[in-house]
């Protein structure tokens, strides 16, 4: 079960090598994203697109807000 985390834990995990995954649309990603975030929109998140992610490192998914 994915763990829900907040800012402080995001920072710690990123410091330890976690990957940030932005699942918003391409346009929203291009407008603003967290430093170093990888983009795969939720609509495109499948085995092929997920190959961009390193399976050996934690992944932190984020969108715009609490939705």
């Amino acid at each position, binding site marked *: *079960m*994915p*763990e*829900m*985390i*907040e*800012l402080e*834990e*995001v920072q710690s*995990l990123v410091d330890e090598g*976690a990957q940030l*995954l*932005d*699942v*918003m649309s391409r346009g929203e*990603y*291009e*407008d*603003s*994203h*967290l*430093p*170093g*975030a990888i983009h795969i929109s*939720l609509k495109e*998140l*499948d*085995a092929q697109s*997920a190959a961009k*992610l390193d*399976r050996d*490192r*934690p*992944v*932190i*998914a*984020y*969108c*715009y*807000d*609490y*939705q």
Partner: protein
Amino acid sequence: MSARAAWRLEQLGFERVYDYVGSKADWFACGMPREGKSAEVPWAGDLVRDDVSTCAPDDRVGELRDRVVDSGYDFCVVVNEHRIVLGLLRGDALSKDATARADEVMELGPKTILPSNPVEKLLGSRSSQGVKHWVVATSHGALLGVLSRAEAERALEDNRARAE
């Protein structure tokens, strides 16, 4: 949306998956750095200065006056031990009873802005007309510092000049 994405990743075999609940809005509202087109335009958090005078709720007004004058601002932000903004001290509150506690005379619930406010939008808003300084705080209420109108206007002009 991030929750669904996290579940999807687990379904795809990823073992260490997290859902950043507050997501982008929370990150930016805490003054954290950003990438993308929005990084090319100034936000309040980019220009914030942390040289404003602060005090604790139980500080005595008489001990604060010099500190406020030295800071170059005409007010002091009252914060708790977590830097949460509780109030503002300015004007009469700073010049009257020197033995009063800050929280007895402070202005309650001062308006704060988020660091993720674009400066252009801020300067164009009707509610900001006549404002000399904005107190900038995170979405959790923690003080980041102060943004001055002069600095905001300068940054916006510079940004427009670069874009031309």
